[in-house]
């Protein structure tokens, strides 16, 4: 069932070895390429999301939104980025300058490193690590430290409160999130993201995990929104109460790092929802069937390139559909209070995710065919 698919690394290293390089040197030359590509993809993803956010919020509020910078204002995010880049970088006089600088860096690095495990196809990912999705959960647990650090270092009561809130929120929602992922892992018998997607490729859209894990899907989506600090869960930066939370004292590029981390995290969460629940790179109708109906062998180079491209397009399309939902939610829902937030996390989502895990385990024992025996 599983076709070997495109393996760019193998082709690249064979081409270089043909030029007389050793396999190790070829690997060393290969390593930076996917990393650079993913970094660029993440940043472009952020620019697109910022543009979408501006346009969709404008449509929600019956405005036009940006329209002079490029066609349909498509260059507006670039202008925003450029503005932040050349803005003066202010460190408040009584702030702790080392921690103040280190905070935003600690927030943005784990999010970017997490792109390591995002698969766009059978071999189209930086590294198919065995602990895959667990690595992402571990990395996202580093973020609260950066938030606490910047909140503390700003020497501002709003910043400190915002930092504490952000850390508390991200810890509370990490547990139901991890339990929802655990139910998926139990079904696919593997932590690797590639295996999780492969387990959903059997019958196209019908075999996607969302039909088997509807509750898990909702829990994961709510928790992902809370982890990204999006409305209705943007308490750490509630303007009416905390000015801008832990970002209050930040300006210029350091502020841009928080902004970037938030949007990269949003896109990353959306991609992960599509990987875990919506069949990842899978087309609603399996490409193997389509190739069979068209009478093409699935291993032919042209078909391989086409299926690879379809995989990338599907991953991005599913992810941006979810980003669209997140943006709509942001501009249509009011913010919850801090006690409602913690009640929802600890008293509702946590028990619900435990029940979900238990039911998944029972179903796996009862119907091993449908729930991955």
């Amino acid at each position: 069932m599983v076709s070997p698919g495109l393996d760019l690394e193998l082709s690249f290293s064979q081409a270089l070895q043909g030029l007389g390089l050793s396999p190790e040197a070829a690997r060393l030359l290969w390593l930076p390429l996917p990393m650079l590509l993913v970094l660029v993809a993440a940043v472009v993803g952020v620019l697109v999301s910022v543009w979408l956010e501006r346009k969709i919020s404008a449509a929600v509020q019956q405005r036009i939104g940006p329209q002079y910078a490029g066609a349909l204002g498509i260059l507006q995010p670039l202008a925003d980025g450029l503005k932040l880049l050349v803005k003066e970088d202010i460190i408040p006089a009584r702030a702790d300058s080392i921690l103040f600088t280190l905070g935003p860096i600690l927030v943005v690095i784990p999010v970017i490193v997490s792109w390591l495990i995002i698969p766009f196809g059978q071999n189209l990912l930086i590294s198919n690590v065995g602990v895959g999705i667990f690595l992402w959960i571990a990395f996202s647990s580093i973020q609260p430290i950066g938030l606490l650090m910047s909140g503390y270092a700003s020497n501002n009561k709003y910043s400190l409160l915002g930092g504490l809130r952000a850390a508390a929120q991200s810890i509370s929602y990490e547990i139901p999130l991890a339990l929802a992922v655990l139910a998926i892992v139990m079904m696919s018998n593997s932590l690797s993201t590639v295996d999780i997607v492969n387990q959903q490729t059997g019958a196209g859209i019908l075999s996607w995990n969302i039909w088997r894990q509807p509750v898990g899907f909702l829990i994961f989506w709510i928790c992902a929104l809370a982890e990204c600090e999006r409305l209705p869960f943007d308490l750490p930066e509630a303007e009416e109460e905390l000015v801008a939370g832990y970002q209050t004292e930040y300006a210029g590029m350091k502020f841009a790092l928080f902004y970037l981390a938030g949007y990269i995290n949003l896109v990353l969460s959306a991609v992960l929802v599509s990987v875990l629940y919506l069949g990842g790179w899978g087309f609603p109708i399996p490409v193997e069937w389509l190739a069979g109906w068209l009478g093409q062998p699935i291993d032919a180079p042209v078909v391989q390139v086409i299926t690879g491209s379809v995989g990338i397009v599907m991953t991005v399309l599913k992810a941006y559909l979810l980003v669209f939902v997140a943006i709509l939610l942001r501009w249509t829902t009011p913010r919850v209070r801090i006690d409602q937030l913690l009640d929802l996390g600890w008293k509702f989502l946590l028990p619900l995710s435990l029940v979900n895990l238990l039911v998944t385990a029972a179903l796996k024992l009862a119907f091993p065919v449908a729930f991955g025996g």
Partner: protein
Amino acid sequence: MTIATTTELICFLVLSAVVVFGALGVVLLSNIVYSAFLLGGVFTAVAGLYLLLNASFVAAAQILVYVGAINVLILFAIMLVNKREDLKAIANLGVRRAVSGGVCLGLFALLVRVVVTTPWNLPGPPAVGEEATARIGEHLFTDYLLPFELASVLLLMAMIGAIVLARRDVLAKDVVTGETADQALIEKARTPLLLERRSS
């Protein structure tokens, strides 16, 4: 020496330096917040060492548990208990430091002796790599089942203790002063301010 082993050696040296100097910083720095953040750095570097030993699951668990949970908890404790009180100057500080330094050096000497005299079985058994996750799970549910369950009972006890301490209404008397606690003050109903005003 191949490229892979050179990279491994460089990574090992850098991570060890971070662990050693970070740990020294945790103990020696006078600012407790810096110590707590450095502790997080040390934990992360230890996770890097696990990764070098081909134990990626243990490395990820180390980051999740030690950096993501324990270190954040320590930071929370430091930032919530923000009492500024001037501590009394401790008498004979120099003597105390010399004694504690001596104890630490003695312990260090003992550890070095253990490291030098033990006949290490080199090279050790081959790393299981990706299989480790399944292997750890098997061990936890077969020959290490009792310690695993005991640890969970211990955590449950700690959790119940924390809840009892946090919910003061269980205690009828104030622990510190011995006076009867005002229950209405402790268990204040959580009603929105606006609703309260409208009803009165």
